[in-house]
């Protein structure tokens, strides 16, 4: 499902606000995923604290949001921008791709939570498509 020009504009607009709160938003999205979908905890057995407040979750959450920010900034070449992350996920992390949908969902929940006025149905649509595209690129080298 191709990103239209309108989709790209919506994503860039809302991300210009989200990118500045990378640690907060990342921690919330990751922490909520771990709580709401406990099967995802299996990838973080080495973390002492899996709550939204955990420093490990905050650090990792920020990392994830920063990576998405770079995809937003190079929205016409997500494949190229995320290429090394894609290799990492395929060869080293090997997170089951089903989980990308779960994190995408909690990212959308957190965007709605933080930016209720900006997160209109059209922006929601654009973000859903964009995150699906990011997920697809991340899983691209798996097999």
């Amino acid at each position, binding site marked *: 499902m191709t990103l239209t020009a309108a989709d790209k504009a919506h994503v860039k607009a809302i991300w210009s606000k989200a990118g500045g709160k990378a640690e907060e938003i990342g921690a919330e999205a990751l922490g*909520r995923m771990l709580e709401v979908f406990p099967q995802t905890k299996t990838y973080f057995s080495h973390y002492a604290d899996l709550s939204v407040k955990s420093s490990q979750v905050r650090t990792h959450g920020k990392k994830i949001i920063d990576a998405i920010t770079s995809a937003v900034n190079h929205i016409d070449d997500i494949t190229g921008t995320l290429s090394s992350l894609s290799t990492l996920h395929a060869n080293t992390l090997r997170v089951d791709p089903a989980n990308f949908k779960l994190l995408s969902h909690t990212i959308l929940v*957190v965007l709605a939570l933080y930016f209720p006025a900006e997160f209109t149905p059209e922006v929601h649509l654009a973000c859903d498509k964009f995150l699906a595209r990011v997920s697809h690129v991340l899983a691209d080298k798996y097999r």
Partner: protein
Amino acid sequence: MGMAEVMDTSIFGLLPQLPNDQPTNQTLTMVHWTDEERQAITSIWAEVNVEEAGHQALTRVLVVYPWTQRYFSTFGNVSNATAIAGNHMVRAHGKRVVVALGDAIKNLDNVKATYAKLSELHSEKLHVDPENFRLLGETLIISLAAQFGAAFTPDIQAAWQKLMAVVTAALSKQYY
């Protein structure tokens, strides 16, 4: 408990007759809600404007997953976001859906029975792909997050996600 732990109850129909001191078929298949989960659900529900929440959630489904418009060909103009948001039939239907959700919330210990007829309706008459129940559940969660902000804590979200999973399972139960 997460979505993955909501049980598909169909396997229990295959169990042999159990002796009297064993839990009954029904107890084994009942969804267990903690007091915190019940509280999370009812406290948010008390603040929800049923018509507004329904309108928001259904509008988002029709906009974000436009293929769902296939079920609303008699609703007039649902061809773009503005038309959808302004459509009176969409608003009325959204309200109807969330009113029905209230029935589940009032009967948390027996959502399956509460929704048996509704499930049959969606399967036999409406021919709705059960995947759509999941989509509506997700957009309702997102609508609640937008309405409640930080008050929609991770714990509360988890309870509502579980509720959406239970509702989806119950609505899917009569499909064959």
